[in-house]
């Protein structure tokens, strides 16, 4: 067959172009915005690591060279309250997880609030109480913060940005560029719960689905996984863009391909059904309390065992393996018996018409 044509990516149109919703949906447009604008101007060796959190050198403590991990996450979820959670606990979990997947112990959080004029204080109180509960449960206090109020119509109720700091044990190296052919790809539980829970409550689309967001802090599960000394290469939480975006990112960073097995990927029947009638693919739907682990295949069973012993990893499953592939494709053997790519998401997932 003909050789693969080189994909030409049209650069961002910085003169005429405008931000559209695809720039925030976890697909290739977002990656392009980050690389051509943010990384271009702000780039440095730490930002260039390209992981969920940056690993930074810290001053020597008691004679030992320390490393800290820092990560930040903006939360703009709509609706603010959804089955299984709200923007408050979500903003804690999201950032704690981004620090924890780097292998670090999350220590402190900072929180920035952008509030819209007219927002009910009772709702704000619920959100902050939920945040406090989540921070307590995760064992990571909010130690500093900021509040701004914008005029009515200039914000969507509440936006919360949280920043987390943690310390990284000596000798531990996890990252998206460390996957090697032969490694095992593991997921901690069922996919798509958060995204479907949110969608079930969207204003124009409410449907009754007995489904709750999986939002949860993963630092406990990760600590248990690290404790067994398995050869872990990379941990990541598949939030926006879902499993597909996260695995494509890792495949690109590590210069490898992946082969997944559809039958092995856990999706709750209710999520599968909701995706079916909304025209969505659960592999692209957001999760907020799930973990992808890539580890040496020899250690896969041990890692699975320790995950399954933890409440947040009970349904952990081996879903595929890392393969050598110069094109960095994430592929899937379908339950039907065929094969296909699991590509990046192009823009938002939009329902098909027919």
């Amino acid at each position, binding site marked *: *067959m*003909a*050789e*693969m*044509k*080189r*994909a*030409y*990516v*049209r650069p961002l*149109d910085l003169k*005429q172009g*405008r*931000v*559209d*919703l*695809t720039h925030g949906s976890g*697909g*290739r*447009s977002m990656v*392009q915005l980050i690389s051509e604008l943010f990384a271009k101007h702000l780039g440095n060796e730490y930002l260039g690591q390209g992981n969920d959190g940056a690993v930074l050198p810290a001053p020597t403590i008691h004679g030992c060279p320390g490393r800290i991990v820092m990560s930040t996450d903006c939360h703009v979820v709509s609706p603010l309250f959804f089955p299984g959670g709200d923007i408050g606990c979500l903003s804690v979990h999201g950032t704690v997880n981004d620090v924890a997947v780097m292998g670090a112990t999350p220590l402190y959080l900072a929180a920035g609030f952008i509030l819209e004029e007219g927002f009910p204080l009772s709702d704000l109180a619920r959100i902050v109480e939920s945040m406090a509960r989540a921070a307590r449960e995760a064992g990571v206090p909010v130690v500093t913060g900021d509040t701004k109020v914008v005029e009515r119509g200039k914000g969507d109720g509440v936006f919360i940005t949280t920043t987390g700091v943690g310390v990284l044990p000596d000798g531990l190296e996890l990252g998206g560029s460390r996957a090697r052919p032969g490694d095992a790809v593991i997921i901690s539980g069922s996919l798509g719960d958060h995204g479907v829970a949110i969608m079930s409550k969207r204003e*124009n*689309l409410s449907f009754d689905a007995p489904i709750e967001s999986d939002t949860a802090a993963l630092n406990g599960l990760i600590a248990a996984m690290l404790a067994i000394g398995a050869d872990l290469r990379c941990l990541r939480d598949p939030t926006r863009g879902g499993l597909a975006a996260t695995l494509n990112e890792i495949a690109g960073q590590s210069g490898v391909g992946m082969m997944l097995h559809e*039958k092995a990927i856990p999706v709750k*029947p209710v999520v*599968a*059904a909701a995706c*079916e009638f*909304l*025209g969505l693919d659960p592999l692209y739907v957001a999760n907020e309390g799930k973990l992808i682990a890539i580890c040496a295949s020899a250690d896969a069973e041990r890692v699975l065992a320790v995950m399954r012993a933890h409440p947040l990893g009970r349904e952990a499953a081996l879903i595929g393996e890392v393969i050598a592939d110069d*094109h960095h*494709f994430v*592929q899937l*053997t*379908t*339950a*039907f*018996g*065929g*094969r*296909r*790519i699991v*590509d990046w998401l*192009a*823009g938002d997932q*939009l*329902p*098909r*018409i*027919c």
Partner: protein
Amino acid sequence: MKYIDEFRDGELAKNLAASIGATVETGRNYSFMEFCGGHTHAISRYGLSDLLPPTVRMVHGPGCPVCVLPIGRVDMAIDLALNHGVILCTYGDTLRVPASDGLSLMKAKARGGDIRMVYSTIDALQIARDNPAREVVFFAIGFETTTPPTAVAILQAEAEGLSNFSVLCCHVLTPSAISNILESPEVRQWGTVPLDGFIGPAHVSTVIGSRPYEFFAEEYRKPVVIAGFEPLDVMQAILMLVRQVNEGRAEVENEFSRAVSRDGNLKAQDRVAEVFELRREFEWRGLSVVPYSALKIRRKYAAFDAERRFDLEYRSVPDHKACDCGAILRGVKKPQDCKLFGTVCTPENPIGSCMVSSEGACAAHYSYGRYKDMH
């Protein structure tokens, strides 16, 4: 999932694949066109072609609603949103169809157009009720599947006296598109597109029934098997087509009998006939101007016709010169034959409409199957 998993069963697929393998005659090639984008999507998403013998080739047809929407029609919708200040409601996929001046509805939205994705015409009506001071236009696209809901919305708006609601009607007709393909020189005279039969539409046929295809089977001697959108439906339909070809039959068979009858949904047909009439001609992307191939709103319901209400005029806009969508929609070319495929034209930056929807031949191949081009 009940009623879904049964139609995606890998074991049954293996059995069907074996039957197809055993039924194809050696030395004979089979080319079948799946008319619908829904079938195209199923074939790509489930990796169905991996299960077929190499002598069975599936040709992608034009039955993808957003793929056949010409630039000029999207321009009209964008004009309504940006220059007439309306709330424009549309189905999801339509948002990304490339239009003139590098715009799409998605980009027009970023420029301030009030464009809203809806899941049904009921949502559009509700938006009209909730915004009595605003004009609300529903951008109605699609084949016979989406036409009845549009008709019902117009009837409902009339019954309620909802005077701020109108419809930009771009509904097209499946049989006209099939005739156009069968009459095309590539099929009829030159034989450059071998076509041994059709997989007939699933959802469209629930509305129009199986009767309209009888003409094609008789007149053009092409077997048609109407099939559901699940992968086992498609496999079963392919087996039925292979059998017809082997036996020299050209009949309409109905694999999707759980949903399609010979007469279709008469109630839906009534509503459509009440509200719509044939357009003398309509431009399709890829098939160019096709006579009597689309619907317009009857004069009786003119108040709900956005074209009349806003005095819109259709201007035809040529596709990108190097874009092969036209040939791809007629089955003359494969996506990977197009110079732009996967280079300039990708799902993020679609040049042609076939790269927009995952029902489009190009997007389906790009997103699910392009690894095959590499080995």
